């Protein structure tokens, strides 16, 4: 017998425009329709993913999922959790009000503004997804909502005397249309690429570093967020397991995840029908909660459900949404001054973490040497790595200028939109990697 079942059905349209070196390579709309049916059998889950879902087939898929649940031997329990859907904020600027042709023209303007002397390639990509999500469960929960996400990226590749460097800018929004105001980003990408032609390869080593809000946000995501995911904690695959109440950083360090914020990782309700809200992973330097689905909350405790997310047609996993370091009481100038000699790292080319081992690594887009508290020469291809448990103690100053950035996070083969953010932070001892040599 099924103890529980739910169905999450997502349908919609995706628009993609790609302009490469002035040529409109593609400007297209596609259609998707996927559903996932989950059934809790006597022990664990049976899950069926279906393309082109029709509600009339639900009974058949529930029966199929129930049969698959017979494979399981792990007793899964579901914690009770409040079911509530937040209103979706009205679009600040609705991309659906423009046709494909107008969007293509706007993107072309961004792409052409990245061109210039020594720039040998420019490329701009626009993506837009309009989704309608329908959810129903055997407990009587039922909701539907529609949500749009859109954004763009622009790349400039510059070359001089065989040295090739790139500048990259991106901007995405939930229920907004950042492309309309994106004109400055092409120039910015070009300027970064040109400046990096003169930058030195960073020389690795241990040093003091200041992270800009974008990179510090990735740091919060990689170093703390993943290891706080309840499924990893349950599996024993997180260095944070069993450490609730332990001090991990100084007073004043608070790291939270909040899917109810209308940032890029916004979810009006989570992927198993649970109300979304703020979870403080680290509160005043102390590990205080994990991120949970109903299942991991029942198994692990410490935290709240409402952090289940899924790509269309996939089984929900514990995921981050909008993850950020709260503002501190210092400012940017104080961070640089206190840094003395070290590096300022700017922007992110992504990161990765091994939560069980507690090691993380991520790359900045570029950086500057810091000498006597002042910015010096530009450096490129610089990365930061470290241990989760040790590195947070190295946060010496937290500024008061938090900004959020948009990205995508991968886990278990699923990619979901996330917002990461932080103010500038100073790390008093960090492992910096680079390909340069003294």
């Amino acid at each position, binding site marked *: 017998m099924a103890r529980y079942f739910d169905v999450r059905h997502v349908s919609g349209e995706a628009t993609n425009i790609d302009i490469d070196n002035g040529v409109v*390579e593609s400007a297209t709309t596609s259609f998707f329709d996927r559903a996932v049916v989950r059934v809790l059998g006597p022990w664990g889950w049976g*899950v069926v993913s279906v393309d*082109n879902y029709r509600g009339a087939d639900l009974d058949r898929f529930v029966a199929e999922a129930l049969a698959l649940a017979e494979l399981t031997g792990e007793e899964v329990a579901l914690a009770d959790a409040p079911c509530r859907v937040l209103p979706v904020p009205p679009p600040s600027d609705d991309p659906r009000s423009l046709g494909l042709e107008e969007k293509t023209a706007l993107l072309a303007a961004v792409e052409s503004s990245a061109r210039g002397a020594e720039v040998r390639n420019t490329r701009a990509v626009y993506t837009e997804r309009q989704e309608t999500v329908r959810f129903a469960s055997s407990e009587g929960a039922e909701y539907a909502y529609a949500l749009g996400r859109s954004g763009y990226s622009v790349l400039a590749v510059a070359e001089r005397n065989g040295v*090739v460097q*790139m500048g990259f800018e991106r901007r995405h929004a939930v229920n907004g249309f950042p492309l309309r105001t994106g004109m400055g980003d092409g120039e910015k990408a070009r300027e970064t690429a040109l400046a990096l032609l003169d930058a030195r390869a960073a020389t690795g080593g241990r040093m003091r570093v200041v992270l800009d809000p974008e990179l510090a946000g990735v740091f919060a995501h990689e170093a703390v967020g993943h290891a706080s995911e309840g499924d990893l904690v349950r599996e024993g695959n997180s260095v944070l397991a069993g450490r609730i109440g332990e001090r991990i950083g100084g007073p004043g360090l608070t790291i939270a995840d909040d899917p109810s914020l209308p940032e890029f990782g916004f979810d009006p309700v989570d992927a198993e029908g649970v109300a979304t809200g703020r979870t403080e992973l680290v509160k005043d330097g102390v590990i205080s909660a994990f991120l949970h689905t109903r299942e991991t909350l029942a198994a692990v405790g410490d935290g709240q459900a409402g952090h289940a997310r899924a790509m269309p047609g996939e089984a929900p996993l514990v995921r981050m949404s909008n993850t950020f370091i709260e503002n501190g009481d210092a400012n940017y100038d104080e961070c640089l001054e206190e840094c003395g000699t070290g590096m300022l790292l700017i922007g992110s080319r*992504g990161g*990765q973490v091994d939560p069980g*081992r507690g*090691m993380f*690594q991520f790359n900045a887009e570029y950086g500057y040497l810091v000498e006597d508290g002042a910015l010096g020469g530009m450096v490129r291809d610089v990365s930061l790595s470290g241990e989760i448990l040790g590195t947070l103690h190295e946060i010496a100053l937290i500024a008061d200028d938090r900004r959020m950035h948009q990205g995508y996070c991968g886990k278990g083969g699923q990619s979901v939109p996330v917002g990461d953010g932080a103010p500038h932070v100073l790390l008093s001892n960090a492992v910096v990697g680079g390909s340069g040599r003294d």
Partner: protein
Amino acid sequence: MDAIEAIIEGAAAHADEAEVYLSGAESVGAELSRDRVRIGQAGHATGLGIRVFRDGRVGVSSTNDPSRWEACLEAALAAMRLADPQPWGGLPGPIDLPERRLAYDPAVTLEPGKVAELLEGMKEGALEHPAASVTAGSAVLSRTRVEVANTGGLRYADEQTHASCSVEAIAGTSTGFEFDASHALDLDPVHVGERAAFFAAHGAGGEPLAPGTYDLVLSPLALAELIEVVLAPALVGRNVHAGRSRLAGRVGEAVADPGLSLYDDPHLPMGPGAAWFDAEGVPTHRVDFIRNGVLAGFAYDLRTAYRYGATTTGSAVRGGYGGAPSAGFHTLVLEAPVADVTADEAVYVRSVVGAHTANTITGDFSVEVSNPTFVAGGEFTTPVSTAMWGGNLFDLLGAIEGVSAERREIGGMLLPALRLGEQRLVG
């Protein structure tokens, strides 16, 4: 008239040419949480991709609801009208291809019991190293069918099977990971479990590494992670001509050690991307990229080839039914002089953390090494707690000191372990 014929006929009224790509996949799988099965899964996927052409303009659209093909065709035609025209010489016509399936094993049937056996095998293997315990694992069996058709009368179909299993283990805070994947039901789950547990157990108690210069041995997995991000994109024609490849303009030049060769072998039976035809119906063949250290050429699909006056290499691939096909690789093989790569002491790099943060154009990378350990005399010796490694992948191609005789399938590649001289590591 079936759906494909209806779409072709509908498209022909509005476009010079049209192509239909239809895919379907059925799968069954299960996942472990620690040592118990937590979830059993099945998937039923369908996808339809339509591409239309007129006067050098191309439009694409896709849907996973083939009954909505008319809306999909309409969207593809709208996209075609917006695209900038480019030189275009037409879709391929049909030829006779071998009927033998290259990537199909009838033993891969979608039975939950077979999935359970794979999971049990991995658990059994992990028991060989009691210091480590399994944290998560999965096994999946799938069967896919693809069909490509176009207005030139081409209509090819292929059926493939796939089996995979993977497991993660931990000992203290030392983690280990292993996997196996094949078109055939020839996985060795016991070995997969044993290796994951071994790397977890072996890495426990690793010592810090003094910063300095070391010889490295890259496992096939670590090599694949770097090639995928830096070298593979640099060999794709579109990146080359758009100014996004460091190898642009260097055909005929030495770009690697004289013994190194890199080629795509799509006809290798059971090779990861084995296929007689590519994603746009062009017959496949071996493509040499680096021959004895000299850059020999790049991968092209039809569109890039027509635009830049090159010839397609039958390298079109699709990430799924959506989007347009683009040039890629079927089964990328790396060969170099074989040596006993683990005889002399070196730091063994099992995999790297953060390869995707590498600079895809310049090849500069800075990564954290997973499961670093010293290796000597063919044995893993002292484990290392952590190491950061920075370098440039294009430069590494000239610093190879030999590769292992054994090769391993990783993603779409068939790779050996590879020894590098004098690399700088930060502990």
